[in-house]
């Protein structure tokens, strides 16, 4: 095994595992803040008990997210030291800004939210819930800024050559609002709302199926369903804008997403299929010229093909094609599921129609797979570049780190993450089975 492959597997594993948790926290934080707000407004204790209950699940998610996030902050230095030297002038500042503007806000007020209920009033407690959510969103902002710069670098110049080459910042705001930041941030945030709200919806669906905590679960399910429906529809819009941006800024990534080989040809909008990388063909069912229709209302618009660049400059086409179509398919399914929920609600049978409740229980898994698939599309589609068209992933490694060391750390992280996930899942399921606190008699 070579050090490049091992380092890529380790980065993919650590970031992929980490990326299970922050989207859940972001989405859950929104629903929890709304629930505390509804309690303040209506004085209905069901909302408060529900918020308290989901706050426990949030805390569990947050803890694993924080613990695995520490790795990310330092892994650029450990495994990708050449990358760190190359981009430090640009990439470090959003990471530091994330700490200063997001993590402190989030972690400080989470302390109040979790442990301070008796020390601060209900209004400050609600405000803490809002600030924790704001912190989680700001954290997404800065990390997406950093990641988008790797996709569509802007506001920099290159100084020096060879080992001494460095990307130097020339315009901070051009770096922050680089061409893809807006689209990628809105797409990531709405997917996070979907991930968190469907998890809450699923827990409520379980209680409704079991006819436990029915009043609480019914009220919470409606809040979660509203957030999930809005998020699912936003996914369509932000996904569309992201695809247009990719077509303008990363044409070879788009070609890989649709398995589009021939250069300067209209691009099919595929529903699914298989890529034959050896023979440079794609077998797929789709709408001829469909991508042009979506991008510019022009089915004969011509797109760059994979064959227009050397094989060494192409991303892994099969993987990008498949993950992209998994993401789109699941995204569409989630729109259908949330619309079904809204329809049942309008008929007054949201809380009792069991087949739909079972479908809701599957929805967080669909959202989670869609998010991971989308992330793989974005990051594998960027290959072979670590910074698009500037620095190759293979040139970005730490020069002093040996394959054996990475193999050791990869095994260590794998074992540790299996332990974390098992404990997280066990405690989460236990928490759900025990259910929310019963209504305490008024003192």
């Amino acid at each position, binding site marked *: 095994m070579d050090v490049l492959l091992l380092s890529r597997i380790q980065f993919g594993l650590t970031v992929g595992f980490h990326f299970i948790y922050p989207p859940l926290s972001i989405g859950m934080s929104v629903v929890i803040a709304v629930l505390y707000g509804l309690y303040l407004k209506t004085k209905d204790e069901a909302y408060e008990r529900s918020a308290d209950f989901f706050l426990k699940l949030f805390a569990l998610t947050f803890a694993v997210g924080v613990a695995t996030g520490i790795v990310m902050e330092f892994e650029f230095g450990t495994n990708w030291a050449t990358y760190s030297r190359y981009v430090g*002038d640009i990439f*470090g500042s959003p990471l530091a800004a994330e700490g200063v*503007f997001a993590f*402190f806000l989030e972690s*400080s007020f989470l302390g109040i939210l979790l442990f301070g209920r008796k020390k601060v009033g209900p209004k400050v407690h609600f405000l803490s819930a809002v600030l924790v959510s704001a912190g989680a969103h700001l954290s997404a902002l800065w990390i997406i800024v950093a990641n988008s710069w790797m996709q569509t670098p802007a506001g920099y110049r290159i100084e020096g050559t060879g080992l001494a080459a460095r990307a130097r910042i020339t315009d901070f705001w051009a770096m922050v609002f680089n061409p893809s930041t807006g689209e990628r941030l809105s797409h990531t945030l709405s997917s996070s709302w979907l991930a968190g709200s469907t998890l809450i919806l699923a827990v409520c669906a379980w209680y409704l199926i079991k006819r436990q905590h029915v009043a609480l679960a019914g009220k919470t399910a409606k809040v979660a369903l509203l957030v999930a429906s809005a998020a699912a529809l936003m996914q369509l819009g932000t996904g569309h804008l992201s695809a247009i941006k990719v077509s303008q800024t990363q044409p070879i990534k788009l070609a890989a997403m649709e398995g589009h080989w021939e250069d300067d040809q209209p691009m099919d909008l595929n529903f699914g299929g298989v890529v034959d990388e050896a023979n440079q063909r794609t077998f797929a069912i789709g709408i001829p010229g469909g991508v042009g229709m979506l991008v510019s209302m022009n089915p004969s618009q011509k797109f760059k093909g994979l064959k227009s660049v050397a094989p060494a400059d192409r991303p892994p086409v099969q993987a990008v094609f498949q993950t992209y179509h998994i993401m789109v398919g699941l995204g569409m399914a989630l729109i259908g599921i949330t619309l079904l929920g809204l329809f049942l609600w309008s008929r007054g049978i949201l809380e009792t129609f069991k087949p739909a409740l079972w479908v809701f229980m599957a929805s967080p898994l669909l959202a989670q797979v869609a998010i991971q698939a989308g992330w793989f599309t974005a990051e594998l589609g960027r290959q072979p570049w670590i910074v698009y068209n500037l620095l190759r992933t293979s040139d970005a490694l*730490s020069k002093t780190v040996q394959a054996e060391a990475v193999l050791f750390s990869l095994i260590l992280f794998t074992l540790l993450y299996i332990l974390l996930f098992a404990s997280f899942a066990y405690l989460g399921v*236990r928490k759900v089975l025990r259910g929310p606190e019963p209504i305490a008699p008024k003192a």
Partner: protein
Amino acid sequence: MPLTQTAQALAQSAAADPTALQLTWFLLVGLLLTLYAVLDGFDLGVGILHLFARTDEERRIFMNSIGPVWDGNEVYLLTGGGALFAAFPDVYATVFSGFYLALILVLVAFILRAVSLEFRSKEAFAWWRQAWDVAFHAGSLLAALLVGVALGNIARGIPLDANHEYAGSFLTLLNPYALLVGLVTVLLFAQQGALYLVMKTEGALQARMRKVATWANALFILLYAALTLGTLLVQGDMVQGYYVAPILWLVPLATLAAVLATPWLHQKGKEGAAFLASCLTVAGLMGLFGIGMFPNMVRSIPVENSLTIANASSSPLSQTVMLIIACIGMPLVLGYSAYIYWVFRGKVKVEKASY
């Protein structure tokens, strides 16, 4: 020949004096890491002492004494790491890739520590709680030890090549001086943690913590003497700054005063003051480290390959932008921290919502 050009360029920049902006960032990164050491120091210390708590109730008190604050404390490390990456990318890259295995172990230790706080009391089985108790203790101990060993190596000097890449191995890092600094760090944090627990506990547990703190105080004075002697023997360059700017003598004098005041205040029963004196010790030692390193950030063997404030810096524009971020952000951060310590002042009560 790009390689020799690189080496020449690096050698030239090594000779340059740091600019005011670069000095500011040296101080700011130092301040962030000092705040981190002071704040996470005592909660790592609580973890190091965790197995001194015998009953389940006592262990919950230990964990909940840092419950609302440990996460915020750790954010100083993340922010310090980000600031180091942004202001001195070559230090970030050289140290973390050079200390690869050690840093991976630190990360594993931090992960174990963080999740054991959240996981431990969520299940009642004795084996479950014991396992996470051990993980909490071991994670805290290993993190403190390895961070100390890393600092010891950075001060002593590590083999770097002309391109600032680490040229040693994992075993290079395990030299006696670095291990001594690691041990000092563990004892220092344990002392700070014990004094913090004296403030946060009551009754018989508090009486036991007083004894632990007394032992920690005594051991730390011995280790502090050994550290001072060891540093003078191994890295005499660390005292150069005091000849250039005699006012700097205030830092070692204040540190010594804090080291001696801690046990004295503790014996007089002044809990808060004794804890603050131990915090001042941590800050003072970080100050001594900074003065001793200046103008280097990572000492190299051979010395001409050292990473300095001037040659490891990012561009003036990057550091200016970061300075603006710091000026807006740091007052907010200090405000949050002050507010949360104010809300959770006083003795620990274990409740249903607690860890």
